[in-house]
Structures are given as C-alpha cells and as structure tokens.
C-alpha cells in the first residue's frame, strides 16, 4: 500500500515538473517523446508481470488437466468376460501393483510378460517368468506375434487379444475431458493465450525501442516483426495440423521472446543470428517430432545420431576452438557451433528403451559406454558445467531404466570422488569453489559475475527498471551466463521467476506425461530432455545468484547462442512426443 502510494506520489511529482516543461518547449517533438518514454515504462512495468503470470497459468493448466488418453489400442478379454483396455503401446502384465495390467494371482510372476505394439502388430515377451507364457497353447521362447483372437496364457491364466473397435477407440474416454475439464471447450483457448504472448512481445519491443531512443535500431524492429510472424505461422500450422495441445509451444515462444529482449539489450548486433537460431530450432523441432512419431524409424535414428555425436565430439577435440578456457566450438569458416549442444539430443535418444527391453534385461552397457564417451570428451574440453548436466541426466535415465537405487547411489558416489579429484587438481575449478558463498570478498575477481548479478537483481526489484535500462547487459557474456540477472534487473524478479518456473514446469510435465504414455521410449526421452533443461537452468540461475558454484552454462531457450537454442527446440520434441492427448476442439475429428 505504502509503495503504491509512493508510486502515485512519484507520478504527481513528475506531472508537476513536466507540465511546465510541455508549455515551455511546445512544438519540440523530442520533449514530448521523452515524456512519453518515461510514462510508457512507468505503466508497462506493471502490465508485464500481470501478463506473464496470466500467460504462465493459461499455458500450464490445460497441460496438467487433460487426464486420460482418448484411445485404447486393443483389449484383453479375461476369463471372466471382462475387457481390459490396453492403454499403451507397451503394457506390462504381472502380479506387481505397478504393472499396467495387474493379475493378482500367486502363481503369476511379479513382472510376468509385456505386450508390445510395434510395426503394426502385437508381440508378447516373457520376462523370465516361472509359470511361462503360452500363445494358443504353445509355450514361447522368444518374443512372439499375437494376432487378434489368439489366446495368451500366463501360467495358466488365459486371456484373448481383441482389436480396438472403431466406434470406441477414438471416443472411449471422451467423457473424461468434457465432463471434468473443459465444459465449453473455450475455457482454455490456446489462441487466447497466444494472443497474450503476442501482446506481451509487442509491448516489450516498443519498450526496447523507446529505451534506445534517440538511437533507432532497425535490427530490433525487423527481428521482432520476423519473429512474431514466424511464431504466428508456426502456431497456426500446428493448430491446423496437430491434434495435440499447443501450450508447450506457447511457453517456448514466450521464452524465445525473452531471449530476443535480452539480446536486444546486450548485443543488438547479434539479433539476426539469434532469430535465425530460433527459426531453425522450430524447424528442427517439427522434423524431429515427425521422425520419432514412428518407433521403427526412431531405432534407426538412434544409431545415426549416436555415431554422429561421437564423430562431432572427436572433431571438437581435434579441431575445436578454445574460448573462455573451454574448447567448445567448431569453426566451419562461415559458421561456428558448439557440438556438445547437439550431442544432448543424441544422449537422450540413446538412453531410451522400450518396456520389454527394459524389463527383460537390465543391460545398459551401450548407454553407459556412450555416456562415458560423452562425459569423458566434455572433461577433456573442460566444460564441467555440461559434464554435470550430462551426469544428472544420466542418473535420471539410468534410474528410469533400471529402478536400481543402489547402483545409482554407487555411481553417484564414484562420480563425487571423481569430482573432488577434479576440484583438487584443477585450480580453475577450485577457485570457483573458494568463491562460492564468499562472493563479496572476491567482488572484483572471481565473484564479479555473481555480485553484479545480485546488484542488478536488487536494482530491478519485483517489477524491473524496464528493458534496455539495465547495466548488467553491458557486462561481457551476460546474455549467455547472466540471463537471470538481466531478467531480474530489466523485467523484475516476478518475470524472472516465471521464466525459471516454466522450465521447472517442463520437468513436472514430463513426469506427469509418463503415466499415460504410449511407450516407455517416449516417457524416458521426455524425462531425459526435461532433466537436461532443468539441470542447465539450475546451474545457470542458482550459479549466478551464488546458491550453487558458478558454472558458465546457458539457460535453455533464453540465453543467447545458436547451438543452444537449436538443441533446446530439438529436445522439446521429445517432451512433446510423450503427450498424445487430443485437444478438445480436435476430439470430434
């Protein structure tokens, strides 16, 4: 209340001093303009957080509320005549409570068998059960095709596979949507949320241009015109072609918009590159989403990506360029890129596995070997931040695949010892740790970035000083490493938090999707991609505000950097693919 009055007071004071000004310099265009600039920022800095919070809520609520998939892929007719829907492409059957189809009989094994739909056919795989699996009375040794009408017997428990009948498959659980969530179908209209994002970006770009006044930078105007056009096009094509929820894309348009604002403040000359990266990223996203929609195709893609990744890493070590003490860049003459960013996509896809594989064998040798190569190469490149990202993601994927806490704990403690050795023997890393929680002591040396971030964040308050009015953006590499500080200073703590919460939301959303996912491939990929986003964000944000030691790492979608932006969009395709729920407005199609 007090602060509100303070604002009113400021406004009155300001009016009192400005009104004579207007009369004094009547006819002077510039003075009018200066007044408008001041007043514009004064108003929009209250509007932005409100818009951002609205956008955030309108995007996350529909994504978390849709409950069940609309279709069953087939049915199992049990002996008592009940029909059990097969909700996934991979269904585990067994006595265990976490089986997708629970048969609570003592002679059925805990994880007895997996019924898998792939290449347009159903397969049954015995998970080494005691009672064995029979199809039409013949005991199976290897995964075997099950045709509709065939009888499967699990240790004597018989069931018949039936196809999903047409009327029911699409509309089976439609009631779930209409009754509980979106009564009118209009409550959460993604077009409205998109319009809010456009409004936010439109008001934002005016703020950026006014802050630059009297200098006029056409790059800013042009970049935003192209960006707004591109996201509108992308959104409408998606809206028309895809039957899925689109809020995920909306959140990323919002983040990309923030990254363009940051680059406008920090390095307007590099705006075109950032814009190109966003556009290319959207393309990569769409292509990758299409590629992995088919599991057979994905399996081929997996080997291709894995071998490309290894080649890239070797090339990087051989001909890479060193910047800021890390050898991360490959220069092709006309373009420079960071291979480790693209390796992230390969890393996630290599980590995935179908449920039958996952339950029959705990063998993760290939994945562990690939992780070892990636992490080893990154250590040689001295990119320790990315090492942590890969390792954290490795833990997530490995745990999802094996479910073995003890092994994970063992690997983690091994890694911890390794990390301590690295800290002890690398003076550059050791100094980071010495600075940690002592930044004010080293305010002009190793604590420079963190202290400046905190000073800038405090200067911004909750509402920010207005885009383009900050000082942090002029610090070297602020638009990659200190983006959180720039957001706090120029846009305010509220918007900075929303940006971080969007990334945290992606992780929660990936977990949420796991429940009704068609295949464990998509579930693991989504969680893997989300954990890369999450860990990168944690290291970036918490590192610059001195909660964690500082690591020079980018924030997905927000930091400046072409490779990072493209890789972020690529990883997003994995999260998107795990969600196969249908939008209410497309449910009738």
């Amino acid at each position: 209340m007090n602060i509100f009055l303070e604002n009113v007071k400021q406004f009155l004071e300001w009016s009192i001093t400005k009104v004579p000004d207007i009369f004094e310099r009547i006819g002077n265009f510039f003075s009018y303009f200066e007044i408008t600039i001041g007043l514009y920022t004064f108003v929009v800095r209250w509007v932005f957080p409100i818009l951002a919070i609205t956008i955030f809520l309108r995007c996350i609520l529909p994504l978390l509320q849709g409950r069940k998939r609309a279709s069953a892929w087939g049915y199992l007719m049990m002996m008592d005549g009940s029909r059990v829907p097969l909700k996934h492409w991979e269904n585990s059957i067994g006595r265990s409570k976490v089986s997708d189809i629970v048969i609570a009989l003592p002679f059925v094994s805990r994880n007895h068998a997996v019924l898998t739909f792939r290449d347009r056919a159903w397969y049954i795989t015995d998970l080494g059960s005691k009672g064995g699996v029979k199809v039409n009375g013949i005991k199976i040794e290897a995964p075997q095709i099950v045709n509709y009408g065939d009888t499967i017997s699990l240790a004597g428990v018989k069931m018949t596979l039936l196809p999903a009948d047409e009327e029911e498959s699409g509309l089976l659980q439609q009631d779930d949507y209409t009754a509980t969530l979106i009564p009118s179908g209009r409550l959460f209209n993604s077009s409205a949320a998109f319009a809010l994002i456009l409004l936010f970006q439109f008001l934002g770009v005016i703020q950026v241009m006014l802050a630059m006044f009297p200098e006029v930078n056409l790059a800013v105007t042009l970049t935003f015109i192209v960006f707004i056009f591109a996201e509108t096009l992308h959104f409408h094509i998606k809206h028309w072609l895809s039957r899925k929820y689109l809020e995920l894309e909306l959140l990323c348009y919002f983040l990309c918009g923030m990254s363009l604002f940051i680059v406008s403040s920090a390095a307007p000359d590099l705006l075109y590159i950032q814009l190109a990266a966003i556009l290319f990223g959207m393309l990569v996203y769409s292509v990758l989403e299409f590629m992995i929609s088919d599991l057979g195709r994905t399996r081929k893609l997996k080997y291709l990506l894995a071998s490309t990744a290894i080649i890239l890493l070797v090339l990087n070590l051989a001909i890479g360029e060193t910047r800021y003490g890390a050898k991360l860049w490959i220069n092709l003459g006309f373009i420079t890129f960071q291979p480790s960013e693209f390796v992230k996509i390969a890393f996630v896809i290599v980590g995935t596995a179908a449920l039958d594989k996952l339950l029959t064998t705990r063998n993760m040798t290939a994945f562990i070997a690939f992780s070892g190569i990636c992490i080893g190469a990154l250590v040689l490149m001295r990119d320790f931040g990315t090492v942590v990202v890969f390792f954290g993601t490795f833990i997530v994927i490995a745990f999802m695949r094996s479910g073995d806490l003890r092994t994970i704990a063992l690997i983690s403690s091994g890694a911890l010892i390794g990390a301590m050795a690295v800290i002890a023997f690398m003076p550059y890393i050791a100094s980071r740790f010495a600075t940690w929680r002592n930044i004010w002591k080293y305010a002009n040396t190793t604590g420079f970035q963190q202290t400046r971030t905190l000073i800038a964040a405090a200067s911004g308050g909750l509402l920010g000083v207005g885009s383009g009015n900050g000082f942090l953006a002029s610090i070297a590499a602020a638009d990659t490493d200190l983006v959180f500080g720039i957001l706090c200073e120029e846009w305010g703590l509220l918007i900075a938090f929303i940006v971080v919460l969007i990334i945290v939301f992606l992780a929660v959303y990936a977990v949420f999707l796991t429940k009704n996912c068609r295949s464990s491939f998509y579930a693991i990929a989504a969680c893997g991609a989300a954990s890369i986003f999450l860990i990168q964000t944690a290291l970036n944000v918490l590192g610059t505000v001195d909660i964690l030691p500082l690591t020079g790492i980018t924030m997905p979608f927000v930091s400046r950097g072409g490779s990072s932006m493209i890789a972020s969009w690529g990883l997003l395709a994995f999260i998107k693919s795990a969600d196969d729920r249908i939008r209410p407005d497309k449910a009738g199609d």
Partner: protein
Amino acid sequence: MKLLLRRAAILLFFSLLVLVGLVIFTWQYVNNSSTWVQHPANRHLYANGKPINLGTIYDRAGRVLLQMIDGSMSFHGDKTVRTAVMHATGDMHNNVETSAQMAFPDRLSGWNIINGIYRLKSRSGSGSNLTLTLDAELCAAAYEELSGRKGTVGIYNYQTGEILCMVSAPSFDPENPPDIDADPEKYEGVYINRLLSAVYTPGSVFKLVTAAAAIENIENIEEKRFYCDGKLQIGGDLVTCMSAHGEISLSQALASSCNVAFGQLSLELGPEKLQRYAELAGFNSSLEVNGIKTAAGRVELADAKDVELAWAGIGQYTNTANPLNFMAYMGAIANDGLLVNPRILRERRVLSFVNASAGENKQIFSPDTAKKLKALIRESTLSIYGEDTMRGLGLCAKSGTAEVGGGKRPHAWFAGFLDSEEFPFAFVVVIENGGFGSRVAAPVALKVLQAAVNSF
C-alpha cells in the same frame, strides 16, 4: 507405465531441489537486496565509485543540509551549520556510521523492493528527499556553545519523539575536511556521534534512577529524613560528600546532590531493585532511532559489594550511560512515565502509525511515580536555580559531575526537561572532562534551551 511413473519421481525430486534453491534465493533477496543495491559497483547509483544518485537531506525548516549536484556533494551554505550537523548528515566519505547517508541509503536512492531502483525521472533530479527532525540553526547554536570542548548536546520533544538538536564535538567542516591524523588529540573520535554512540560515567544524574526506585519502594519517602555528616562508613570503606549536609529530606538531598543520602538509599533498596530500575531507565539496552542503534549504558550490580552498591547508586562504580538514552529517560519522567522513542526522520511512513503506539513507546513506570519524581526534581531545581531560570517553563534538571579517575577532570553532565505543554523538551548535555556539571554543563544547556524555546 505405472512403473516408469514411479521411477520418474527422481525428476520430481530434482525439480524440488531447484525450487528449494529458488526459495533460498528469495529469502536472501528479501533480507539482503537493500544492501546489495548500495554496492559501489551498482551503475544505477555510482559512477567510478562515486554516488551519482543521491537525494537531498533537509532539516525540519526545509534547509538543505546535503545535496548531490551533478555528481558532487554539497552541504549547507554556512560553515557552522554544516559542522554542527556533520554527524547527522555524514561527511563525503561515509566515515560516520550513524549518519543519515549510511542509515537511510534506501530512502535517499529511492529504492524499495517492489520498484527497485526505478523512478519516474523528474527534472529536479533523481533520488529521494529526506527530512530530518533537526533544526540546523539550533544545532549550530549548540555547537557554538560547546566552544571547542568535546561533548554532546541533545534536545528532543518527549511527546512526539522528534530530536531537535543533536550535536557532537569534535566535528569538522565536511566541505573542507581537515587532516584528521595531523591532530589526533583534537579530533579524538571525530567520526563518532557522541549523542548516539558514546557512553560516559553518569555521576550524579544517576541519582534520578535511584530516586525513582526509592519512590516506588520505600514507604513515606517524602517524610523520610537522612543524616549526612560528610561521610558514610560502609565496612572499612568510605563514601564521601562535598560537605556535611546535616538532616535533610529526599528533595534536599537531590538539590545538594548528597552522596551519603543516596548511598544509604541504595543500600536500603539493595542491588536487585536498583538494577531493575536502572534497566527500566534504559540501561543495559539500546534504543533504535529510526533503526540507528544507540550505544547501551551499563549498570551491573550482581557482584557489587555494599560500598560498590552505594557508589553505583550515586552514578559511579562501573556505571555508564549513553546520553541519548538518558535524555529519553528524562523525557519519560516528564511524559507521565511514557518513554516516546526518539526519532530523526520527520515524515512518518504511512504504515508506521500502526506500530508507533505499540512498538516504539514504552511505559516505564506509573504516571503517579512520574508525577512524584517530577515534583521532587522541580523542587530541587527551584531551590538551586530559582524561579527566574527559564521562567514559566518548569525547568526540571539535575547536574552531574562524573569522576573518571586517571587524574582527569570529571565529565560534566546536565540533563532534564521542561515541564511545559508548549515546549515539551527533554535535554542532555555532556562535556568531557569539563569539570562541575552545574557550573560547566548547565549554562550550555540553558542557553541552547532558550534558543530552542525562542525558535519554536
């Protein structure tokens, strides 16, 4: 998939850790951002380590005490005024810890947690304005009265808490700072605001604490008579008086500042009661003047022997007092036992009235006790200074001559208040190694009080 959902919880756990990190950051932000923002590396406020954005400090009459013009600091036009209020405004290099510059940087830069450093810029400059309760002319008069002696003068309105006069000497002209190191004797503790941050042996002014305890704890104290033959024998030790006062009442004892009578009273009261009344009077704790903490005076009687207790009751032993705290105690006696916390900022924040009545003020003893004590002080003041001193303003005061040992002259104290609705002022004057309180400190206090009365 249920199996995977369960295992995916590890990612939820990671998310939770990130949220915990954010919460810790938020906590630190809420607590420390006002400090972070004042760092000299903040280019919103500083250029090359020099502040570019500082508001103006005014006194209560709207006189500019400190201002920032085009990145350079300027003070009041008159040398005596700026020297007298130097401790209140602070100097150019932030040497005075308790100055307004150091204590209210947020107000001066216009920072708050919602708007940050953002301000709708007006032509009259940036930053915010700050109005102090001080009267600069009065401070200058007080500084002149000290005439080069070390010490402090304070006057405050015991009904509103506004500090009108706050002067500490030695001081210097902040516009032309002298070479402090060249004359360490002259500039001893020059950066310390003695009113807020110094403690001195109180001497006889402490008798007002002992008297309060006696009024509340000894029956028929008004009728009680003391016998003084110039010395009080306690075991093998002596408490001595200036002269033999003979048979006297409490008010006569106070007027003649009889050590024997107050020594006896202290023994009668005992260490616990005296300790309790000392603490009620503000000893062993500090006040907060708009968040600026004062130094705390000390009274520790737990291990005192009888003779030491007697000396403590007359303001010697290990007792120390902070001038501002003692002035607030004077104000409380005048204000029916209600101690109104002194403040230095003129404008109250909108929300502060809510706290003002509850948090800042303290009823230290009953109005009845206050009235009795007031009458006692008034009676003794009249007997010494007569009706003509501050005629019609109800001067109530006590002098103190605090022995400091080491062959040095005693500190001269003079503290009290005007029992007047129109001029509700409490005051304190301390002159370091000045000599007799009534001869050295009292004239200073009376002149400054007269100036205060004339200007309001």
